């Protein structure tokens, strides 16, 4: 499968995720500050966090990513768009992989997000959001592969004298 087809497949599978209700969006949006705080604490307490984030220089960027992730997911819960979802995730992978974030970072992050969402949101809304996190988790290898291809291609293209 070529790059374009891989991306199309991601979009097609994303479209199978059921749309979300306004109620789910509102609870998620309301709880963003405390969820991001919990997530940061859990991730920073990991022994392997520097390995996952690539270096200590990336820790602030990682915390920004956690906040940006939450606001982005809220916007997807409100106005679901499969192409925006795929494009944005690929952009995140490219930006963070370019800065040496390990592919395992996303597995760790998304697992921790599941835990945090379960802790902070109602059971009903957690169950509605889980399929989205399942989809992101299952497709980490695809995101990594697609982003790494582009990173390698662009490293040689952009050279500053």
């Amino acid at each position, binding site marked *: 499968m070529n790059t374009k087809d891989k991306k199309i497949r991601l979009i097609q599978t994303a479209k199978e995720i059921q749309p979300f209700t306004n109620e789910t969006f509102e609870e998620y949006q309301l709880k963003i500050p405390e969820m991001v705080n919990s997530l940061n604490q859990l991730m920073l307490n990991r022994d392997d966090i520097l390995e996952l984030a690539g270096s200590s220089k990336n820790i602030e960027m990682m915390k920004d990513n956690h906040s940006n992730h939450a606001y982005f997911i809220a*916007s997807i819960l*409100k106005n679901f768009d499969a192409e925006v979802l795929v494009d944005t995730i690929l952009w995140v992978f490219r930006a963070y992989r370019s*800065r040496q974030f390990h592919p395992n970072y996303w597995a760790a992050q998304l697992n921790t997000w599941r835990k945090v969402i379960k802790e902070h949101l109602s059971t009903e809304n957690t169950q509605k959001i889980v399929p989205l996190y399942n989809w992101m988790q299952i497709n980490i290898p695809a995101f990594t592969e697609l982003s790494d291809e582009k990173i390698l291609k*662009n490293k040689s293209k*952009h050279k500053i004298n």
Partner: protein
Amino acid sequence: MDNNDKEKFLEALLKGDRKGGSAIAKKYVESHSDIKNFYENIIKPSLYKVGEMWEYNIISVAAEHLATAVSESIMNELYEHVISENRSPYKIVLGCIEKEQHQVGVKMIADVFEMHGWDAFFLGANTPNADFIDYIREIEPDLIGLSLSIYSHMPSFEELIKNVRNEFPNKPIIVGGQAFTHGGEELIRAHYNIILLRNLSETEQYIKHFEDEHKR
């Protein structure tokens, strides 16, 4: 000619060479007699390239901010070419919605309106929604313009649209920005009299259409 100018302009941005960038801009505008082309064909692709270079960690966020700052300062230098002596009776209030920092695109749009003689009240980046509405109430513009680059800000954008519509049910709203590249059109269609404009050319066409419809 455009490709060569683009490369040189990008190089000037990356080096923070405001003088060099300014010289390229002035020469281009003199030879093309059209600032809009400079905005659309030189500044816009250069800043997109800068964004891409940050994405791939070729440049730092500081370098990206420098490139943006140099671009804006050069746009300000060209202002004598922007303000039209032929004034029209129309006003627009436009800017980035709250938390939205990417203001160069909407600044270009503001300049296009000024080129057509409009009074363009450009609010810049990150205007809190409540203050945006207060200002619309104060200025009573004929048109409102909202810019959105980051899709995550869509909920805030929708909130602003609803609040504007509550108080100004019929006032036309033009919207644009990179957030609409792949989505957001359904949201726009759900509200009355909101027009998505994707580039400067569409903006000019809309201005002419608006003036024809609202002749004074």
